[in-house]
């Protein structure tokens, strides 16, 4: 039988709930603080046990605290996620219908893209094609900002990718809804949105996983086909592997939608 929850667990859950996602070290700090406030047993290496106690109580409610890795820096994160898709969960009031449609279309672009990024230009061009209710580009820009604030998207230099929070919550959904396109990392076996892909056999690896995997090797070779790994190994060159690849000339100038009037 699952261990009983204490106020320390409840406080931890409340704070995580308010943030949606927390970085590993923050979560560890919170764990400690909650135990101190409520004077319950604390051991610094018992965070995962602490969380699994909470999870056993969240399970009937189709909620869970999940651990996942940031695709950018490889750090662990904890997110409180919803697991159910029901009539009730659809009553969420955070976003309007067309905002959600824009989000899904942006998600499409990101997942179907090669490097896991979609430019703001591409996403904003969707705004007046929404089926539910068209949006002005200005509005769409605002909505994108909110998605970033709410940690569903991340933005770098005008390019958007899925936030770690979104990946943690939506992993199963993406894997089943984008069966043919979604990739799994060959190292950690989780969904990979931003990844490097082997030129010869096509397997994918997260950038932090690439970094870790090749750290010990003199010559980088694909773990699958053993061919030479021709991508830049992040952290080994001066190239900033975090920033999205350069984009075409049109991207940095005007967006036009000549077919709309």
């Amino acid at each position: 039988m699952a261990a009983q929850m204490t106020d320390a667990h409840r406080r931890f859950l409340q704070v995580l709930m308010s943030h949606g996602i927390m970085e590993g070290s923050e979560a560890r700090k919170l764990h400690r603080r909650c135990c101190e406030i409520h004077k319950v047993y604390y051991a610094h290496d018992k965070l995962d046990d602490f969380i699994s106690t909470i999870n056993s109580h969240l399970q009937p409610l189709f909620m869970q605290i999940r651990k996942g890795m940031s695709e950018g820096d490889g750090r662990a994160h904890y997110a409180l996620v919803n697991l159910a898709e029901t009539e009730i969960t659809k009553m969420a009031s955070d976003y309007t219908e067309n905002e959600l449609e824009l989000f899904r279309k942006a998600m499409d672009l990101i997942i179907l893209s090669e490097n896991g990024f979609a430019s703001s230009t591409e996403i904003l061009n969707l705004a007046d094609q929404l089926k539910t209710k068209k949006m002005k580009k200005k509005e769409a820009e605002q909505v994108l900002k909110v998605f970033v604030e709410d940690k569903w998207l991340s933005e770098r230099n005008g390019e958007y990718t899925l936030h770690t929070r979104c990946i943690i919550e939506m992993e199963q959904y993406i894997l089943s809804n984008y069966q043919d396109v979604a990739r799994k990392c060959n190292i950690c076996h989780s969904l990979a949105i931003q990844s490097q892909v082997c030129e010869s056999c096509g397997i994918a690896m997260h950038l932090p996983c690439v970094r870790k995997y090749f750290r010990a090797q003199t010559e980088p070779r694909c773990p699958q086909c053993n061919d030479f790994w021709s991508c830049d190994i992040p952290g080994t060159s001066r190239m900033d592997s975090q920033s999205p690849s350069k984009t075409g000339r049109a991207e940095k100038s005007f967006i036009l939608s000549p077919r709309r009037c």
Partner: protein
Amino acid sequence: MSQRKRSKVSGFSQGDDGDEDFNVSQTPTHSQVQRNLERRSQDQVNQKVSELVQFLLVKDQKKIPIKRADILKKVIREYRDVYSEIINRAGRTLQEVFGLQLVEIDTRHHIYILTSNLPRAEGENLRRDNQTAKLGLLIIILSFIFMRGNSAKDGAVWEFLRRLRVQPGERHEVFGDVKKLVTEEFVRQKYLEITPIPLTDPPEFKYQWGPRAAKETSKKDVLRFVAKIQGKDPTFWTSQYTEAEATP
């Protein structure tokens, strides 16, 4: 017996707004609920409890109070005969798992809110967003009302807010349409009650605490806040202090 009750109850479902009273006498008694409960499978009831907890959490996203009518219509449906049991268990789950409390703020119309059972710790690392700033505006208004004797005229409230660079007619850089925030959002969330003062021309309004304010904070806390801001002891305001200490 329970059949009669249920058919009576179901006639109520068309009222989406649920403002019409849902008579307490129509609610099955405890022993009836127990009997009804036996006819339902445990799994089904548990499932309803889980759904209700989800529903309450979803509805609390915008801090709009939750009406029993909505709960019945959207979640309970054909389980009306065991409603009281389901809502009690959902309340217990919210308490045991999340440290949240399901509070009935209007026992006549059966309106519920969620509050936290855990007092916020000093410097607690909660998410800071636009809601945080709104809370600041709210406590100022609540303070003003309480300190002025639990009621304040709209003119006085806005005159006071103007001193804090909050103008009803202007778009505020943090709050946007601040008039709407105060007179609609805070009212809908039941933090404030605004009622017209009869026989006033142009019409004047009376601002008072709404039931959510009394549950989420207290006169004592608001007085502590005022005292902290003004660098004084709460006892400085004798009558407010007396009143705050006498209010549970």
